[in-house]
């Protein structure tokens, strides 16, 4: 097989009247569907799909997600990081199940996109999927747009407003072959500050399809911390396509944690469009079984004096696989670019496979960029040191793997968030051999 199946279109939900979006938006969706169908499926020859397993992209079995059966259980289970939240929205099969906003400052919007498309049309028109999808999945982004239903969210924090507690969003999928299209659009005004956490979860172990997009826009001086906790079932095919546009002296920090999913394709684009813009791109991925993670990134330095720092870490057990292809691109005129890119694999099994393609394309002088990839096993000396203290080998290995990920969390500046994430990682890694 040399290309993905051509047009496995997921049908529209049975009742088209159920589309919650206004007419102007629905018209765009129709155009997106046509574009999806007109766009050829990826092939082996596409650089952005090198090493990818195209077979896995067969969408033919997937169906629109029915209404969830276990609404109450899903709402109760949506506990997130375990602290208070400024706002909490829970979606099950692309339907809003629950919302509360106990600590949202005035003026901050956290609402379903369909609502926003009616009430805040200008915002949605300006920012919704405004960035080109350059890293290979344009076709699937169009499918996302076409089939976007109730699980889109707009977070808008106006100028000079800081949201102290995190905003937590939950996206559940339930039922055999259900497909969901979560979307998180975050628009920050000047000097706005917020932390947003997306939780992607399966209500059961069923096979599912998730095609999600996150788009972030940061005006001058804004600060965004975004965390995705991906916990889809091990039989889920997922796309997570992200673009981040960072303005003058603004900083975006994004941490993508892939704990679940069977076959996951991630694309992350950071565009640093004004001087002083900073983007920190982190990903933490403990893989085992036959899980497959394919991540493509672009650090696009458009303006002068911008900074980006990417650190992706994977542990690979059993027959898991990762692909990483990253590019730092200091564009023409992007003088004094600081761009860093590093991916590190901790190999826990001889049968696991890692492909790393770090890259750099410099179109201007006067830049400081480094990129690289490393791969190695658990250090025998570290393991011996642990065992010499009485810690059994398996547990020592687990501690070392957990440590490998926890030290990445040091890049998260917010102490309370970092601690919660540390606890989450520690509890998750108990299950790794």
């Amino acid at each position, binding site marked *: 097989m040399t290309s993905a199946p051509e047009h496995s279109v997921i049908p529209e939900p049975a009742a088209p009247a159920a589309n919650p979006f206004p007419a102007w938006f629905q018209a765009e969706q129709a155009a997106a569907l046509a574009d999806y169908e007109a766009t050829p499926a990826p092939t082996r020859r596409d650089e952005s799909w090198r090493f990818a397993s195209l077979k896995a992209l067969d969408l033919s079995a997937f169906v629109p997600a029915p209404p969830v059966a276990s609404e109450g259980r899903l709402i109760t289970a949506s506990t997130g990081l375990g602290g208070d939240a400024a706002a909490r929205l829970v979606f099950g099969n692309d339907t809003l199940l629950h919302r509360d906003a106990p600590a949202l400052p005035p003026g901050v919007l956290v609402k379903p996109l369909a609502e926003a498309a009616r009430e805040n049309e200008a915002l949605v028109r300006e920012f919704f999927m405004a960035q080109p999808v350059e890293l290979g999945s344009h076709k699937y982004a169009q499918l996302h747009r076409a089939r976007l239903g109730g699980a889109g969210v707009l977070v808008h924090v106006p100028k000079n407003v800081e949201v102290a507690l995190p905003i937590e969003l939950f996206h559940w999928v339930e039922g055999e072959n259900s497909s969901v299209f979560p979307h998180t659009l975050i628009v920050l005004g000047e000097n706005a500050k917020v932390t947003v956490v997306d939780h992607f979860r399966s209500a059961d172990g069923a096979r599912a399809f998730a095609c999600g997009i996150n788009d972030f826009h940061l005006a001058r001086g804004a600060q965004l911390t975004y965390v995705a906790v991906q916990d889809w079932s091990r039989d889920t095919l997922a796309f997570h396509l992200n673009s981040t546009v960072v303005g003058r002296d603004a900083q975006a920090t994004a941490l993508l944690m892939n704990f679940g999913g069977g076959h996951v394709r991630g694309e992350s684009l950071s565009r640093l469009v004004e001087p002083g813009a900073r983007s920190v791109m982190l990903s933490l991925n403990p893989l085992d079984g036959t899980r497959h993670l394919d991540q493509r990134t672009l650090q696009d330095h458009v303006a002068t004096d911008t900074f980006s720092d990417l650190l992706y870490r994977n542990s690979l057990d059993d027959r898991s696989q990762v692909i990483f292809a990253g590019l730092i691109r200091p564009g023409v005129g992007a003088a004094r670019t600081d761009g860093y890119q590093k991916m590190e694999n901790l190999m826990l099994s001889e049968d696991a496979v890692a492909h790393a393609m770090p890259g750099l394309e410099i179109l201007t002088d006067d830049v400081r960029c480094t990129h690289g990839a490393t791969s190695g096993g658990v250090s025998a000396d570290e393991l011996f040191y642990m*065992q010499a*203290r009485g810690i059994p*080998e398996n547990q*020592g290995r687990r501690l070392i793997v957990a440590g490998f990920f926890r030290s990445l969390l040091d890049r998260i500046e917010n102490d309370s968030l970092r601690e919660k994430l540390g606890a989450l990682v520690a509890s998750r890694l108990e299950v790794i051999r």
Partner: protein
Amino acid sequence: MSLSIQNLTASIGDQPILKGLNLEIPKGEVHAIMGKNGSGKSTLAKVMAGHPDYTVTGGDVLLDGESLFTLEEPDQRARAGLFLAFQYPMEIPGVTIANFIRAAVQARLPEGEELEATDYYANLYAKMDALKIARTFTSRSVNEGFSGGEKKRCEILQMAMLEPKYCVLDETDSGLDIDALKIVSEGVNAMRSPDRGFLVITHYQRLLDYIVPDKVHVMVDGRIVMTGDKDLALELEAKGYDWVTEDQLATA
């Protein structure tokens, strides 16, 4: 009751390092080993602890009468009561001192029993205070970015927390400033007891002014060639190891 090393031979690859080593450390005593660089002191320590790089080709080590070598895994030997303070402690990124020691203490509890966190921290802080280790170290990664002296102090902290039966200290004094040497020695002395034996590997007689040994052994080329009391260390300091070799050859 003793740690009894009997005619031990061990190799790395096909190169023999320990060549018939005999040594007995009764409970309650402190023995020191001195010897040239490369004579096999660290090898002895690591062989006993179960380092996978070394092959034991003969002899035995009995911990209170039970062969260490029937315990395959290093962690089993540690839980049986053997502790090794490393000459070069490993750095473990992302694993905090508190969690590391906690895992080690937890591993000594019976299956299903959970360590009581408040007791654990009370104990840890008390021992850190005694060794003048700042409490901020609990949340630092094991040995990462520690100074040489801080690493050694942390080894002693681990020893104090794990309360082993026999402690092997491999050059714990190297890298310590004079104050730290006193603090660490006090820590070791506080642990001396009729129920515990120590094997202290060192190059410097000065350590033995603080931790006064019952016996001093000299190791040459994988064997103990001379044994004496604490004054032997002074004599070595004055005359050097060549004297031992000649002396030993003369009496052989």
